């Protein structure tokens, strides 16, 4: 692998990170205010659809963006009504919004465009296109042959759509709002102790609605980015679970903006791997080391704990060992024998590569990153004590 491959991987990571990052920050504002939002996915999806549809109809991608933000904020307000005004279950409300968006986008897309639940392909001037910085190379062949510094500048720094740069700017902006403004202080307070905010004479309801609205705006941009910058139009379920991965990234980042950026870049790296290396090949011996090694580590951990840990983690280790042995066995033949089979390469099933981001999310949530303490009042509607 040469340097340019790495630059490409990094470039893809950043591109994939933006919707994650925006959704993650959206979740951050909402959860910091004490409203859990599992409906990031649905809001992005609705925004992706509507911004593509409006961009297509009007030919103006900015109008599309605005429409995307609009629908996303509308869904946020519905979530706010359910979880703030009517003190409903926030998880259930979020799940409902996800299904609502998943179903309605296809139904309306079919009703409007009759193209099997997608929007027509957007023409180039109805999309967010890459901005080429001065002096940056644009042709692939030129970049291949350029110096590493130029490769980095042209591929990694330059050539993204304006939403990418905007998305990256939201990180310091969020930090500043959260820690340097009155609104931020109150927002953080309402997620920790709404009763303190209430008795200080500030409206809990208004603050939380404000947070939820910001969440809607950011999700809206994220969705619009997917359908008008990454892709040229909306396709069914195009958000591909990013809303949930963003939530995992948020936990990983422990609800802090700069850490959210790091977490999202890391998660998106796994998506980038899937795109850059759809056919990953590994030597059997590495597979065995990886699987059996992690099995041994888990078992060692479990043995220091309880019976239940030994059963679950021990069982999982056995499964991993079995997979490793199967990979080995599959390469064995009369000609090369057992030892030589260890050094054969095997193609990692594409389904596994596609599952990597999701697997990584589970591993992160398993808490290999230390304890994450969510905002204390998170998920609970504010009810005045009696």
């Amino acid at each position, binding site marked *: 692998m040469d340097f340019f491959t790495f630059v490409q991987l990094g470039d893809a990571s950043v591109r994939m990170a933006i919707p994650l990052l925006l959704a993650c920050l959206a979740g951050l504002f909402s959860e910091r205010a004490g409203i859990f939002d599992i409906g990031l996915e649905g809001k992005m999806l609705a925004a992706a659809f509507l911004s593509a549809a409006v961009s297509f109809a009007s030919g103006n991608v900015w109008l599309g963006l605005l429409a995307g933000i609009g629908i996303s904020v509308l869904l946020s307000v519905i979530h706010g009504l359910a979880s703030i005004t009517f003190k409903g279950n926030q998880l259930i409300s979020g799940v409902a919004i996800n299904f609502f968006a998943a179903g309605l986008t296809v139904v309306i897309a079919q009703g409007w465009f009759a193209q099997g639940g997608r929007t027509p392909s957007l023409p180039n001037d109805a999309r967010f296109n890459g901005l080429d910085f001065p002096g940056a190379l644009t042709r692939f062949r030129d970049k291949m042959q350029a110096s590493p510094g130029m490769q980095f500048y042209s591929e990694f720094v330059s050539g993204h759509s304006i939403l990418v740069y905007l998305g990256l700017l939201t990180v310091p902006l969020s930090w500043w709002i959260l820690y340097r*403004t009155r609104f931020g*202080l109150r927002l953080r307070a309402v997620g920790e102790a709404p009763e303190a905010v209430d008795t200080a*004479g500030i409206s809990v309801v208004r603050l939380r609605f404000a947070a939820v609205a910001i969440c809607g705006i950011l999700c809206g941009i994220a969705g619009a980015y997917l359908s008008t910058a990454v892709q040229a139009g909306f396709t069914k379920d195009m958000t591909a679970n990013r809303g949930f991965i963003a939530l995992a990234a948020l936990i990983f980042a422990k609800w802090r903006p700069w850490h959210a950026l790091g977490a999202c870049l890391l998660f998106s790296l796994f998506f980038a791997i899937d795109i850059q290396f759809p056919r990953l090949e590994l030597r059997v011996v590495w597979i065995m080391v990886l699987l059996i090694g992690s099995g041994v580590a888990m078992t060692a951990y479990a043995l220091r704990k309880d019976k239940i840990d030994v059963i679950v983690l021990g069982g999982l280790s056995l499964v991993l060992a079995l997979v490793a042995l199967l990979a080995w066995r599959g390469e064995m033949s009369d000609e090369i024998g057992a030892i030589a089979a260890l050094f054969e390469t095997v193609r990692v099933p594409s389904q596994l590569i596609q599952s990597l981001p999701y697997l990584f999310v589970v591993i992160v949530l398993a808490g290999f990153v230390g304890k994450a303490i969510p905002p204390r009042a998170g998920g609970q509607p504010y009810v005045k004590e009696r």
Partner: protein
Amino acid sequence: MSDIAPAIELVGISKAFGPVQANKDISIRVMPGTIHGIIGENGAGKSTLMSILYGFYKADAGEVFISGQKTEIPDSQAAIAAGIGMVFQHFKLVKNFSVLENVVLGAEDGALLRPSLAKARKQLKSLATEYELNVDPDAIIEDIGVGMQQRVEILKALYRQADILILDEPTGVLTPAEADQLFRILGRLKEEGKTIILITHKLREIMDITDTVSVMRRGEMMATVKTSDTNPADLAERMVGRKVLLRVDKVPAQPKDVVLDVRDLNITDDKGVHRLKGVSFQVRAGEILGIAGVSGNGQSELLEVLGGYEKATGEILLNGDPIDLTGAYSDGQSRRARGIAHVPEDRQHEGLIMDFTAWENTAFGYHHDPKYQRNGLLMDNAAILKDAQEKMGRFDVRPPNPLLAAKNFSGGNQQKIVVAREIERDPDLLLVGQPTRGVDIGAIEFIHQQIVALRDQGKAILLVSVELEEIMGLSDRIAVMFDGQIMGERLPDQTNEKELGLLMAGMKDGEAA
């Protein structure tokens, strides 16, 4: 008298929570520059009334006059603007914020934070010198003690330039010495011309510090009198509506063999804080050992270890045999099987499941009992229901309807359900935590009698309470806890509140004597 307008005048305040009428047509006047006490039983509506004044609840009817001016108080913002500050019983602080941030929250000067914080820092310094309210402005709330947290609450009110300060049960979390200090501060505030309203259920505090006192009962205002014109017995009678026994009737204890022997118990929590530091004591059959102390000094952890839901190191012997402190047999089920019954400190979050019916709660913790099973597989719900009916009858739970959800009973009746369940197990050892917290006086008397009756049957009882009066009245022996240690043991008839108070504040055994 009528020359000066009252600082506060409430006229005809009414408030209902669903079907419960918390305040009925209440009127009250408080003169400026006085300390006015409001006394009443749990559930009498004191806190509700003051929360209405602070804009936390909205009254259904009635008017508020501040310094003679009719004032609408739709929310706390309006109350603050009218110069009212309130220190709630459960502090309204953001635990992971600094003192400074808590003080500033809601009273910021502009959209940017830094100037507000700088200004508040200066102001806090001058308030600290003026009223002896020293607090480190950069300390995080969860790292400082409850006494300090209370100061932050007072500072919050003063920072907002409150002229009227309401304190709801402020001494519940304080040692007697801390309480005295609080009263000194309140005295200073009064001298400065501030008006103070003190909500409490402790008669002593009323007599010690207030100028006038109002008595509430069942949502109604019974009387407002000058403190100098009344006495504790009179106030108690007005509170309850009949003569009350201020002391528990009991014969001297006849302790027998040691039932519970606790040796060198230690707990270190997740954050590495040492919660119990080598606690050792014994409880004999036929005696009540009372553990006194300000809450948060390890009593809860002690009960949790004995009840089987907190891990600890050390040794606990029950009737001479050790009980497991770790492993599969250290859980609550095993404790119950060994004859330990437990009336927990927090009946709403531990002792009962509020959404369960009374009969379901009757089996709670004892649902493995063979008498509640129909066969190996299914539970005998009919047997539980019948059992519940009988228990509710014997303990005079009202209404005696086992099909009602626990949340629909009053605090006293909820506690009776818990006490009935635990006492009727005929345990060797009964753990009792805060048996009368949030319980009306009638139920208090009944519950105390049940505990004494169990003692007279020759059972060992470990009582934990933050109410010194309850400890003094009920215990045969008193141990005082402070900072995870037992500071000393006393006999109730050979000690007094002052001495216990010093032990509760951490004085060594020798120093306090």
